[in-house]
């Protein structure tokens, strides 16, 4: 089991996700500085949350041009599982690995709180073990948007990974924290080996967090 966590200037959830992976899989992920140009054989590449390049220009835009991203894109196309969380999701969109855009939250303010999500695609390597799950979000730009053509495409191809929902799994406007289209919290690429999601499963991954629902996402891919 070999996993890698990319570290950009301004990443700040790199350690958190590495700790979660270590606790769940028993293996210490390797941290990869963004100026490097290649990643060795990998079973999982994580693009972590944070504020890469201070969110300057546009969230994720500058990080997507970091040297290491060429190899991340190449590995993703070869089928290596790639997981982007929060700012990592924004970076994966900016690198063209995922469709859509992440706009400012409809409230126009940063939101940090627990939300509930449930998988729409239930067969991907990331989503197959997860039911309705509680975990935190912490972002200013998580309002997912795609054109209606793109939406039809990702719906037809079962690329919606997670949707914001209530305790009973109902997807409604009331359970949508940030205005995302179709309550989308995470999406997959066409091949289902790349996942971008706004919620932070690494912050709901042990008893001390008060909730362990985020573990299933790592467990499904690491075991």
């Amino acid at each position: 089991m070999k996993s890698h966590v990319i570290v950009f200037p301004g990443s700040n959830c790199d350690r958190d996700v590495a700790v979660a992976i270590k606790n769940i899989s028993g293996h210490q992920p390797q941290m990869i500085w963004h100026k490097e140009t290649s990643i060795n054989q990998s079973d999982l590449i994580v693009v972590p949350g944070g504020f890469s390049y201070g969110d300057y220009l546009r969230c994720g835009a500058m990080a997507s041009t970091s040297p290491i991203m060429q190899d991340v894109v190449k590995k993703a196309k070869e089928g290596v599982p790639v997981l982007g969380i929060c700012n990592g999701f924004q970076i994966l969109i900016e690198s063209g690995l995922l469709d859509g855009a992440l706009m400012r939250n409809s409230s126009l303010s940063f939101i940090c709180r627990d939300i509930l999500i449930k998988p729409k695609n239930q067969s991907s390597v990331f989503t197959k073990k997860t039911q309705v799950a509680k975990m935190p979000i912490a972002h200013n730009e998580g309002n997912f948007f795609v054109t209606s053509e793109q939406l039809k495409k990702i719906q037809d191809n079962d690329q919606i990974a997670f949707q914001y929902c209530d305790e009973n799994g109902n997807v409604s406007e009331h359970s949508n924290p940030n205005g995302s289209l179709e309550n989308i919290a995470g999406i997959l690429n066409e091949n289902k080996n790349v996942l971008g999601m706004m919620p932070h499963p690494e912050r709901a991954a042990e008893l001390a967090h008060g909730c362990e629902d985020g573990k299933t996402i790592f467990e499904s891919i690491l075991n």
Partner: protein
Amino acid sequence: MTNHNWQFQTEQSLVENHGLKLDEFEKIVEGLGREPNLTELGIFSAMWNEHCSYKSSKFWLKKLPTSGDRVVQGPGENAGVIDIDDGDVAVFKMESHNHPSFLEPYQGAATGVGGILRDVFTMGARPVANLNALRFGEPNHPKTKHLLSGVVSGIGGYGNCIGVPTVGGEVNFHPSYNGNILVNAMTVGIAKKDKIFYSAAAGIGNPVVYVGSKTGRDGIHGATMASAEFDEDSEDKKPTVQVGDPFTEKLLLEACLELMKEEAIIAIQDMGAAGLTSSSIEMASKGDVGLEIDLSKVPMRAQNMSAYELMLSESQERMLMVLDPSKEEMARDIFKKWDLEFEVIGKVTDTKRLILMMNGKEEASIPINILVEDAPEYQRDYIVEEPSPIKEYKSEDFDQNNILKDLNTMIMHPDLSSRKWIWEQYDHMVMADTVVRPGSDAAVVRVHGTNKGLAMSTDCSPVYCKHNPYEGGKHAVVETWRNIIASGALPIAITDCMNFGNPEKPEIMGQFVECIRGMGDACSKLNYPVVSGNVSLYNETNGEGIYPTPAIGGVGLIKDLSNVKTLSLKEDGNFLCVVGKTANHLGSSKYISIIQSKEEGGTPEINLDTELRNGNFVMDAINQKLIASAHDVGEGGILVAISEMCMSGNLGIIIEIKTNFPHGYFFAEDQSRYLLEVSPNNYDECQKLANNNDVHFEKIGIVGGDKISIKNIGDQQVSALKRSFETGIEQISH
């Protein structure tokens, strides 16, 4: 303006514009043996203003207890340091950014957070928690909405980006802050005890290195501005507010911590208030050496900056270090990796002078001791005013049928309502070690990779301080102590942020003196010393001073995280018990201010012996695993505290008490009280422990249902109460 006796070449108005008094100028001339040039005058102005020199407060601050078994470093360094076992230390401090935040709330608050973070990581600690203490004017004051939303987004904007969780804080609203809000920011960091970095320069000839951002013209004379009162023209001072860049600070943090793993840094000091001036002088003074700096080597953001501007700029995200010369290249490589400036700008000398060169010309030469040791120190005149009289309230003046209605009104008020609207804008979980989130008595953050944690709380009740500064000073300290105990921790030490009006007014100085006396008595009795702090004076607008506000930030240690307590009620059938006696002290309470719209009745007094006994009892009971949840009884009194426990746990309660003065019982703010949820199985044991320690302990209710039911008074749905509770702050922001 011209003084008849003025006999110097330097224009008198120039001296006054630098915030220096005429006798202070005479002192400079005497020390130098000549008149200062403009650059030197700027340096004296920066060092001798109230903010940097503590000239009005130093004499009194020395009276606070600052030592204890766990104190590794008390006041005088960038931050205080306490021992938290296993070779670990906690490093923390609170600092004010009041004046800039009033002028430009987003940047003022953001750079306040940036500055206090640097104070902590300068010492070698990784910051693990941010807290704050905020005061705004009346909720309906035309400026409050703008200031509240600006300050909150500024604090979030900086803390969220740098990736340090903002886990706690406090907010009050009061007319005395209409023209002068308070923004106090606190950072707590964790380091190894044998890897703490200090600021004393050493090693003659060693390189003085500048790292971080380039220097621009922003924030020139910020510290001098922060040492003056506001008037109608204060908006013109906006250019003195600095602009923050949390992304650069994140890089600076990582680069500094990476370099700190090597044996390369001899001394390090952040460039905060008064920038390059205070950092270089601080390092030289602490090390009893001189520094020679070539200002033309300072990385500059603007063209043609003068020596004066370079020395007084408060550009953010900069540090000054003295390095081991053999490690210079290795250090340069680390900063290069993080895309940060790294420039050798000078060297340590044996002259004990600060010598500034620029393009081959000497711009300043000042003996360090006259800047620091000979800085003015005042024992200002003070008057201690009589505390407001304590009023006895009578049961017949209150209608007990209104108790639940009054509760609803109180809990909707911005002073007592949920702070969720604020803390949801802060990332309070990044670093994945937050164990108790905002909204409980104290926030708890795990020490990474261990099973121990730090409990932290900020507190102050300015109304108490105004009406009895001595008791108010005690209360601010004790309130953090109680919050930390109620969370299951051992309180260890505090940082203070002393926000007051103009110290040249004897009655304001009297408030300061009395608050310090109260704080000192509480700290001594509770073995809870002060390890760091900050003073912010001249918080006045058009001659109106703020209420005395000694904000306290307390830190405690939880050795075993399984002992963490929150205020949420846990289980049907458990007993709710009160610790400490209620004596119907309604004076200065939230009940009187919110329901009766009055400020009267005097400050509740604290018996420190009772406080210590009650607190120790709660600590013992928690450590013996007898307690399900715990909450201190603070502003608003017992019924507000009970409601908070119910709303947090989504559980109801049946309350039965014996009193002939229900309003007094439910809303009084008598001190030294806690509420404890105890399972019936542990109740006898708890009662015995209380009896053995001479502690008043009394069962007042049984947990269960979805209502707060008070026998002979009425019922209130918890869910409905919660809806009221969550609207208070949001009302202001809409």
